[in-house]
C-alpha cells in the first residue's frame, strides 16, 4: 500500500535524522515506531504525508510516487489521516464543526451527511455531549479524541499518529489509548510514533526501533520487547543508561570521574549511598589493585543503570595478568562484597583487543 524507498531527510542545520529508510506498509498493519528522542521517528511519519518534504527518496502510495512534483498532494492527504501530539483542533469552530467541516469542504458531503457521520463518531469516542463546545473548553484527552474523530470522518486508508499521548496528563493517557486500541482491532492501517512501550506492545503488530538515521531493528512486539537482537535496542528496551571510562597508566583523574558519576546518579535518581558503593568498588578494583600491580595498566570501566530493573551494574575489563581483587586490605571493600545486595562474578573472555579479564558487579537497593 505504501512503499518507502531510500528516504533521506537532511535539515537546514545539517542534521540528518533519516539517512536511508526503506519500509513497506501493508493494509491492516499497525506499526509502532519507537526509539530514543531525535532519531527521526516523527520526521519519518511527517514525510509519509509530505508535511515534511524529504531530501531524497521515493514514497509510493497506491502506485503513485507522491514525492514527484506533479503529484496532487491534497488528494493524497485526504487518504491519510494524521493525529498530532498537540491535537490541533480548529480553535474557531465547535466540536461538531471540527468534524463536519472537512467532510463538507473536502469530500463534498451534504451538511446532513456530515452531521450524521460526525455524531456517530462522537458517540464512538464517547463525547456526544460536547457537540457545541469549543476546543479550549475541553481537556487534553477529550481534544485528542475529537481529533481522532475528525480524522476518522475523512475515512482515511491509513492513520498516522504522531505521539498522540505525549502532551497529555497521565490521567488522560488511558482514554486516548483505548480509543486507538479499538481502532487497531477494527483492522485499520495505522502507524503510531510513541514513547509508551507497553502501549506500543499491546497495540502493534509490527514494531520499528529507530536509531542511527534509520530503522535499526524491526520485528513483532514479542521479538523487539522480549528478545531484542541488537545492542541499542536492548539498552533502549531495558531503559539502560551507561557511562564508560578507559584507565591507562597511573595518572587517571579519579576525581573527575567521581564528579561525573555524581551527576549521572542525580539525573537517574540513583541513591547516593548506592553510588558511593560503586565509586568505592571502582577505586578499589581499578586504582588500588589492577593499576597498582600491573606495569602498563589498561582498563575499561563501564557503568550501566537499568531503570526498568533498578539495577546499577559495573563491568570492568582489563588487559594483562589476572588479579584477584577480592584479596585486598580494604575492610570497607570486603564488607561491600559481603552485602547481600551486591553481586560479584569474574571470568576470562575472548577479546580481540586483549581485554581478557572481566569483572561483573551489580548493586541493588532495598529500602530499610
Amino acid at each position, binding site marked *: 500500500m505504501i512503499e518507502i524507498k531510500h528516504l533521506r531527510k537532511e535539515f537546514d542545520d545539517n542534521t540528518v535524522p533519516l539517512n536511508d529508510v526503506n519500509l513497506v506498509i501493508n493494509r491492516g498493519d499497525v506499526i509502532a515506531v519507537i526509539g530514543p528522542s531525535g532519531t527521526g521517528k516523527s520526521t519519518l511519519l511527517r514525510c509519509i504525508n509530505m508535511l515534511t518534504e524529504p531530501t531524497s527518496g521515493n514514497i509510493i502510495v497506491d502506485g503513485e510516487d507522491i514525492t514527484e512534483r506533479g503529484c496532487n498532494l491534497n488528494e493524497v*492527504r485526504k487518504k491519510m489521516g*494524521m493525529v*498530532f501530539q498537540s*491535537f490541533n483542533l480548529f480553535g474557531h469552530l465547535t466540536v461538531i464543526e471540527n468534524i463536519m467541516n472537512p467532510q463538507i*469542504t473536502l469530500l463534498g458531503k451534504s*451538511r*446532513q451527511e456530515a*452531521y450524521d457521520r460526525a455524531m456517530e463518531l462522537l458517540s464512538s469516542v464517547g463525547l456526544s455531549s460536547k457537540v*457545541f463546545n*469549543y476546543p479550549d473548553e475541553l481537556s487534553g484527552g477529550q481534544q485528542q479524541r475529537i481529533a481522532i474523530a475528525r480524522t476518522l470522518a475523512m475515512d482515511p486508508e491509513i492513520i498516522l499518529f504522531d505521539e498522540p499521548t505525549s502532551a497529555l496528563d497521565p490521567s488522560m493517557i488511558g482514554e486516548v489509548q483505548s480509543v486507538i486500541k479499538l481502532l487497531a482491532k477494527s483492522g485499520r492501517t495505522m502507524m503510531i510514533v510513541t514513547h509508551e512501550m507497553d502501549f506500543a506492545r499491546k497495540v502493534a503488530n509490527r514494531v520499528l526501533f529507530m536509531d542511527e538515521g534509520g530503522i535499526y531493528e524491526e520485528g513483532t512486539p514479542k521479538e523487539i520487547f522480549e528478545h531484542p537482537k541488537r545492542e541499542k535496542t536492548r539498552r533502549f528496551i531495558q531503559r539502560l543508561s551507561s557511562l564508560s571510562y578507559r584507565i591507562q597508566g597511573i595518572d587517571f583523574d579519579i576525581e573527575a570521574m567521581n564528579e561525573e558519576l555524581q551527576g549521572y546518579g542525580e539525573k537517574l535518581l540513583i541513591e547516593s549511598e548506592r553510588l558511593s558503593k560503586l565509586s568505592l568498588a571502582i577505586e578499589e578494583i581499578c586504582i588500588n589493585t589492577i593499576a597498582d600491580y600491573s606495569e602498563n595498566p589498561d582498563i575499561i570501566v563501564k557503568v550501566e543503570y537499568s531503570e526498568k530493573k533498578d539495577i546499577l551494574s559495573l563491568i570492568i575489563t582489563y588487559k594483562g595478568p589476572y588479579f584477584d581483587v577480592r584479596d585486598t586490605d580494604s575492610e570497607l571493600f570486603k564488607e561491600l562484597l559481603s552485602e547481600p545486595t551486591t553481586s560479584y562474578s569474574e571470568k576470562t573472555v575472548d577479546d580481540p583487543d586483549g581485554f581478557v579479564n572481566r569483572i561483573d558487579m551489580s548493586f541493588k537497593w532495598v529500602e530499610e
Partner: protein
Amino acid sequence: MKRIAVLIVLFLSLVAVMPLFADDVTKQSIESFDGKPIGVQTAVLYEELIADRVPNTTFQYYTMPNDMILALQSKKISAYLIEQVGFGVQKANHPELETLDELPGYIDATMIVGNNSKQDTLLAQLNEFIALCRADGTADEMYDYWINNFDPETSTCDTTGFSGENGILSVAVEGGYEPFSFVSNGSLSGYDIDFICRFSRAYGYTPVFYEVPFESIAPGVETGKYDIGMNIVVSEERNETGTLTDVYYSCPVVLVVLGEQKSELSFFQQISNSFYKTFIRENRWKLFLQGAGVTVLITLVSILAGTGIGFAVFMFIRRGGKIPNGITDFFLWLIHGMPTVLLLMILYYIVFGSSRLGGMWVSAVGFSLMFACSMIDMLRVGYNAIDKGQFEASTALGYSDTLRFFKIILPQAARHFLPIYRNEVVTLIKETSVVGYIAVLDLTKISDLVRSRTYEAFFPLILTAIMYFVIETIMTYIVKRIDISIDPRRRSQTDILKGIKEWE
C-alpha cells in the same frame, strides 16, 4: 481679617490701575519688543520689516491670522504683525486689540505664475492688466471698496460673466484671509477673487479657485498645478523660484498688541453669540455639514480601498517569497515613515501634479495607501499569531492552500487584528484633518475658514472636535458590529447546525 482686607484693597487698586497701563500700549516703540515673542503669519514675510529692529526676538509662525489673536490673548506672544486691512476686520470683532502708533512698514503683494505652458502669456497679460487698472482708476476703486470701506457682511464681488474662450485658470488663494479671499455665504469672495474675476472677463478665461494654505501656494504653483497663486509678498528669495507679476496692491503693516479687555456679555450670551456666528449666520452649518461629509467620504473610501489593497497585497506575499516581501517592506517603510502631510503634498503636487485629479481623490488615494500599509501589518500580525499546528492539521486533512487560508487561518487571524483595525479607523479619521493642505474642504478646513470669518477661537474648535468624536463613534460602532457579527463564538446553536434535521 485685617490681612485679607489689605489684600483686597491691594487687588482692587491693581485692577483700577490696569487700564492706565493699557492706554500706554499704543505708545510703545517697536524696539521695546526686542526679545519678546512676536507672531506673524507663515509665508507672508512681514517679519523682514522689523527683524533688524528686534534682533533678539523669536518669531512665532501661524497658519491663520486669527490664531494669532488667540495666541496674543493667551500670552503666547506679546504682539503680532498683520496688514492694516486685516487688522480692521479683527478690530471690529475684538475691540480689545490695539496697534502701535509706529508702523513697521509696507508690503507689496504680487501674484506668482504657474510653471507650465501658459506661463509666459499669463505673465504678460497679468502685468498688462495691473498697469491698466492703475491707469484707469480700477485699482483705487477696488482698494477703496475692499480695504478702506470693507464690510464683511455686505462686500461682494461679481463672479460671473466668463466666456472661457481661452480656457480655464486654476487659481490658488488662501481662502481664510479677509478681505483678500474668504468664504462668504458659502462662496469665495474678496479683493483677490474680484481681481482675478475682472482679469478673467477681460482676457476670456474661466477661473477655478482652490483654497490652499499660504505655505502651499508657492510649491503648488511651481509644480504647475495652479496657474496663478495670489497674494505673494515680494522678497528676493521668492523671485528666484517662480515668476512674479508686478505689484498689484500695497498696504501698511501694523504691530498688534493687547489693549484693555472689554466684555459686557454674560457667559451664556457669549456662547449663544458664538453659536450664532459660527453656525447660523450665512447658513454656515451647511459648510460644516459639507466638510463633515468630505471627511466621512475620504475616510470611507480609504478604509474600503485600503482594506482591499492591503488584503490583495497580503495574499500575494503571505507565502513568504523574499522578493515580494522585500518590495512590500520597502513601501511600508516609505509610506509609514513619511508625515501624512508630506505624503499628501507629494501625491498632489508631484505624482498627480499634472493630472486634474481633485484634492479629495488624491487624499483618498493617499489615505488608502496608508490604510493598506496598516492593513498589511495587521494581517501579518494576525497571521503570525496563528499556531503552526493549525496549518499542519488543515494541510494533513487535505485543505488546499487557498481553502486553508480562508476557512481555517483567516477567521482565527481576524480575532487578533480586528481590535487593532478599530484603532486604525479612528487614527485615519483624525489624520484626514490635514487634507486642507491640498485644497480639500474637509471638516477641519471648514472650521478654519469659518473661524477666519467669525474671529472666534474656542467655540468652533471645540465644536469641530465634538463633530470628529461623533464621526469616530459612528465608524467604530460599525466596525464593532462587524467584529461581533463575524465572531464565531457568538453564533447560536441553531446557526451552527443550520440545515440539519432532528438535532435535539
